[in-house]
């Protein structure tokens, strides 16, 4: 444990301190530096994707076309989805994994540090290419983040080819990141840390990494088939040439459904660390938590067609996918019950990480309920492709994935920076986000049930009021996120010194090292009893 992570020049004393200037970040193989870069990158993308959401909500503020034309509106919905999924949520979790997994299992670094550097630096290139399509002739991709063929092939804009290449690069980055996580967890655990002693965040990431390796190649496959259809005269998805547009949806959702769990399982893990810490009580049902995550991951491979109930499947297929989807409610329910049982008869306190974690449990459960409703195939014929679906997946992604990330950020910020963040500002950030988010997304349930389709730039008059409320909530949520930038900068620059273990109920190896975490940790493996 020599030099600590710190940008002050005079700190570069020992032989293995970070290099100076830009080359430190460009050539680094240090898991903490790479984790930091992933987190900064993902937050930048979060703001960019969020700005696009603001354009969408401004146009939908009232009926009629005011601000953008339908073509550009479609580009905004597409880019918002792609950037949030691939640029904000996924890299944020990889950043947390980079920072925390070695600290939690007592490893000196990730198992494959050079690949780690490479898997990060592919991302800015991939997103530079994706975002550059906005300035190309014909505009950015405009076919939704699900890019259904033939809208995205025969009818796609010229920039589709760049979109395909960007997706390929993101896929390579994700797969390398996942391989690294698996190699680290399987090989570098401290002596005595058996599988069933691993923190849940490590467990959920291990399972997530396997999901990534299983489905990212499928995504790469489907975009490659698109590329062939566009440029090389094949007809995978072109009915006119004997192809099958529905094949696209099957392949896409075989990737797409596990992808949903890739974006939520690490949040499950983080929340399973945070709730016990602020309840001052051990996690209830550790073993069943692990099995539940495993069960959810396995089931995620056999439910993909529930995104396609109206596509005209045979009734037997419809029933199979309905039953399997309903089944996912069982392990998900077990997890929620376990979190509540952990809080039950604990000694609770509500610092910012706990506030985000408790809101996660409540609001993710609401998203789970609407998910269960969507699983009922006959009812889905009314819900499908309406704002009810938009409400559902934003409830699992915003207070699910994103609140999970904020909870983790506040929980581990003292470890990363060596300072306590400003608790009052953190709580303000939480309450503004909580109110804004519910104001933005809860009315969408009503809009969907009343009959408003998704992905439309203009709507009938009966939807006007709830859309206006939703937009106001969205602006509030969006503006609040700038406060988080200020909180983090303030915390990096100074503040109350953080102890090695700033949370009295927290457990785990990461709290045995000083705050801020030294540049190199666990050069000698700790002993786990």
């Amino acid at each position, binding site marked *: 444990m020599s030099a600590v992570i710190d940008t002050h020049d005079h700190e570069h004393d020992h032989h293995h301190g970070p290099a100076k200037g830009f080359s430190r970040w460009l050539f680094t193989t240090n898991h903490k530096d790479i984790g930091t870069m992933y987190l900064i990158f993902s937050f930048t993308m979060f703001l960019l994707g969020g700005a696009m959401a603001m354009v969408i909500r401004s146009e939908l503020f009232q009926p009629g076309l005011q601000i953008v034309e*339908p073509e550009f509106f479609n580009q905004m919905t597409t880019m918002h989805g792609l950037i949030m999924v691939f640029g904000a949520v996924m890299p944020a979790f990889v950043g947390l994994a980079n920072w925390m997994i070695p600290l939690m299992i007592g490893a000196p670094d990730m198992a494959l540090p050079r690949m780690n550097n490479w898997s990060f630096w592919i991302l800015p290139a991939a997103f530079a290419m994706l975002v550059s399509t906005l300035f190309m002739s014909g505009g950015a991709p405009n076919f939704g983040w699900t890019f259904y063929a033939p809208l995205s092939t025969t*009818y796609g804009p010229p920039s589709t080819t760049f979109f395909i290449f960007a997706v390929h690069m993101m896929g390579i980055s994700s797969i390398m990141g996942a391989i690294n996580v698996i190699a680290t967890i399987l090989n570098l655990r401290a002596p005595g840390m058996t599988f069933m002693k691993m923190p849940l965040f490590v467990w959920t990431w291990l399972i997530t990494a396997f999901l990534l390796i299983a489905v990212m190649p499928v995504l790469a496959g489907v975009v490659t088939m698109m590329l062939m259809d566009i440029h090389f005269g094949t007809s995978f998805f072109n009915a006119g040439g004997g192809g099958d*547009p529905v094949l696209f949806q099957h392949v896409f959702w075989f990737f797409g459904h596990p992808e949903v769990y890739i974006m939520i399982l690490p949040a499950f893990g983080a929340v399973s660390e945070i709730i016990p810490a602020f309840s001052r009580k051990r996690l209830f049902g550790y073993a069943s938590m692990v099995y539940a995550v495993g069960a959810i991951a396995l089931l995620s491979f056999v439910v993909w067609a529930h995104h396609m109930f109206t596509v005209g499947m045979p009734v037997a297929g419809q029933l199979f996918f*309905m039953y399997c989807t309903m089944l996912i409610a069982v392990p998900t329910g077990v997890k929620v019950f376990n979190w509540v049982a952990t809080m039950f008869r604990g000694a609770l306190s509500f610092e910012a990480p706990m506030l985000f974690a408790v809101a996660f449990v409540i609001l993710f459960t609401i998203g789970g309920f609407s998910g269960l409703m969507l699983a009922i195939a006959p009812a889905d014929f009314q819900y*499908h492709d309406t704002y009810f679906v938009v409400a559902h997946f934003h409830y699992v992604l915003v207070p699910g994935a994103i609140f999970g990330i904020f909870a983790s950020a506040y929980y581990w910020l003292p470890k990363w920076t060596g300072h306590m963040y400003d608790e009052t500002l953190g709580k303000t950030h939480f309450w503004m986000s909580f109110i804004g988010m519910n104001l933005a997304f809860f009315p969408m349930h009503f809009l969907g049930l009343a009959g408003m389709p998704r992905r439309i730039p203009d709507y009938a*008059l009966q939807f*006007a009021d709830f859309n206006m409320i939703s937009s106001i909530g969205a602006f509030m949520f969006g503006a609040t996120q700038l406060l988080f930038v200020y909180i983090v900068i303030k915390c990096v620059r100074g503040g109350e010194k953080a102890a090695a273990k700033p949370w009295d109920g927290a457990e785990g190896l990461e709290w045995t090292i000083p705050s801020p975490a030294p540049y190199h940790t666990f050069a000698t493996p700790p002993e786990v009893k």
Partner: protein
Amino acid sequence: MRTKAMRVGLFTAALSLSQSALADWTVNMAPGVTNVSRDIYGLHMTILWICVAIGVVVFGVMFWSILAHRKSKGYKPANFHEHTWVEITWTIIPFAILVAMAIPATATLLDMYDTGEAEIDVKVTGYQWKWKYDYINEEFGYFSNLSTPKDEIYNRLEKNENYLLEVDNPLVLPVGKKVRFLMTANDVIHSWWVPALGVKKDAIPGFINETWAKIEEPGIYRGQCTELCGKDHGFMPVVVKAVPQEEYDAWVQEQIAMAEKERELASKDWSLDELMERGEQVYNTACAACHQADGSGTPPAFPALAGSPIVTEEINAHLDVVVNGVSGTAMQAFGQQLSEVDLAAVITYERNAWGNDTGDMVTPKEVLDYKNAQ
């Protein structure tokens, strides 16, 4: 200024939860007017109340902990962290609830898939961005386009009550008869949805999907396309007009007579002015969405027609593009969509409007000859 005033007005309405002219606080699905839609509504309400009940129990326990078991109140944490029987119980109970829910859902689904013994067959074809309805037993069919004026969309005129949910030619169906819908599409995937009928089915190029409805009450039922299908996805509504049997029979006779009259028009002698007048109407419904009313297009996806060499030079090249479309682009083959009269009119219009002024006139007969020569 008007927009701003309206915005302030709407904002006030939203805040005060008052019932202004636009205010509509519908929060739930409507039961609809078919057996299937009512079954769906029943399933929806059952699963909703199950979720509410589970939510009350789970969040109840949670809020009790949040309020009572606080460190600030000096509460000492308990020590338990697993309990086999509790864990088994809360795995089995949700499973049992799901089975109970799956049974009625399965029954409704099987009913929805029973498309046999229909009395009327309607083929529904999705186009960018309109619907075509073919009454296949009666041998007539027509397009159904959005009829909301652009001025309302761009806030230059006050929006009417059925803004964006109105069409020129609704789908007319009799009440009390089982109608089978055969869904397909001409270009990209669309989805035909009428909430009151409980019908939503994707219209996919190269596929024919089946679904059905038996409407019980006369009325006008409105819906929209629900699969992103490009630029004007939000502007292709569905309107179904359900009428009593006698009225329906009379309407069918009228349609058959009109189709016959349309065929006779092809042999009439047309003047340039007549073709221009008809051509402008056809252009505005079929072409203006992409190529714009003034022929300027939105390049590069939708090229300009004003001054375009295809429109001002060789007539046969112009015919080829309009009749056969351009493969690999959004330009559809209008040969099957428009009658010979409409094709002749729109081509004549394009060759003479917006300063193209070629003076060319294409007659329905020439279009027919061109089609036959292929």
